[in-house]
């Protein structure tokens, strides 16, 4: 794999999902949802939470973008760019499978 993987577009048919060993869980002591991964814990911001909740392994990227664009009445291209960047960043950290 080369550097170009970072910027390569994600297929609209990709079904992003959390890999084995990565979980999004609710925890009172830490004030809401936390992402548990091998030897790491992340506190996702509200936007990341909305995206992560939709990464079920069943919904396609296309469907996730449509849903978010509709929910937040935002331009589709803008959502696609933001979501793709986040998903790619999570995938590089092995927190997501594309």
């Amino acid at each position, binding site marked *: *794999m*080369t*550097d170009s*993987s*970072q910027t390569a577009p994600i297929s609209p048919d990709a079904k992003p999902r959390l*890999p*084995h*060993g*990565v*979980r999004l*869980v609710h*925890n009172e*002591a*830490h004030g809401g949802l*936390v*992402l*548990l991964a*091998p*030897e*790491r*814990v*992340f*506190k*996702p*911001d509200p*936007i*990341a939470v909305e995206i992560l909740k939709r990464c079920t392994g069943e919904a396609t990227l296309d469907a996730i973008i449509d849903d978010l664009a509709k929910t937040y009445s935002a331009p589709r291209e803008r959502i696609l760019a933001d979501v793709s960047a*986040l998903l790619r*960043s*999570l*995938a*590089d*950290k*092995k927190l997501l499978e594309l």
Partner: protein
Amino acid sequence: MNAAEPVFKPLGLLAELTHRCPLGCPYCSNPLALDRGELDTATWSRVFREAAGLGVLQVHLSGGEPAARRDLAEITAAAHQAGLYTNLITSAVGLTPKRFAALADAGLDHVQISIQDHQPNSADHIAGYAGAYERKRMLAAEVVRHKMPLTINAVMHRANIDHVADMVELAIELGASRVEIAHVQYYGWALKNRAALMPTRAQVERAVVAVETLRARHQGRIVIDAVVPDYYARFPKPCVGGWGRRSLNVTPAGKVLPCHAAESIPGLEFWSVRGRSLAEIWENSPAFRAFRGTDWMQEPCASCPRRFEDFGGCRCQAFALTGDARATDPVCHLSPKHAIVATLAEERREEPYVYRRLERERADADTAL
């Protein structure tokens, strides 16, 4: 990642289930005075429930070699049932496919396997155990077969630091999703072996460049976590994310420590889970209160803008190198004692390792020789 920041709360429990270990790694982080008594299964179960109640999210089942405990599957199940994310830190020795399957059934989430080098002879020599390398390969295959995430922990020092690229390649070949380039930290047994383990500055600089190259080459394939080794850094590490702030450590006998080396600081009073709840210990134990926050700091830490970032570095290292646990970690270039670090880094000697053994094990090994 700007979308997900680390949580700044106590969230990790290092559970040292036993100090028994078949390996003899000369950089072992266990104290020189190893615990003999061990908590039973029921007490560990209570500790896990109390930890979860305290906000702990992840438990690191460690040792010694945790597989030396016959009740490891029961302990793992108890941690899982308490709602904790369970991480096994193992040498791989003692974990047959059957035993590992039981751990997977018990709810184990992740495995970290240490490797000593990229090829068997050298790796087994460093571990002080013939056949260790092959067992690590076998367990890694089992972990992958169970579709469990695998981290390879590559402990780096003078004898293997030039093999960093080969060790990352090995981690990829074994199916790891993450590799830690863990430069030896000089506490416990490693402090005893410092002159034999210390890399040269040229080696460290080559390794830093190599890691950057490897990260670019393997982006998206494997996560490479690495930090600059202590004695060659300009700023100290934010040790355990700040004393008594994010993590705690329970020893085999039940003492609760702010970090695994804390017993090396004289005069600290540690409380045990045998007599008290974890919450009470976390809040009120004299050892936890000793260096919590920033009030204990001296200059240059006390007025330093980085004090909330690195917390003055490591208390154990400050004590080991300056004799004062409240001093700035001398790894910091702002420390008035920083020159010590450079001097010690030059003290390299080609000498045999002092392998980490329990006294009884050492006696047995000597007899065998």
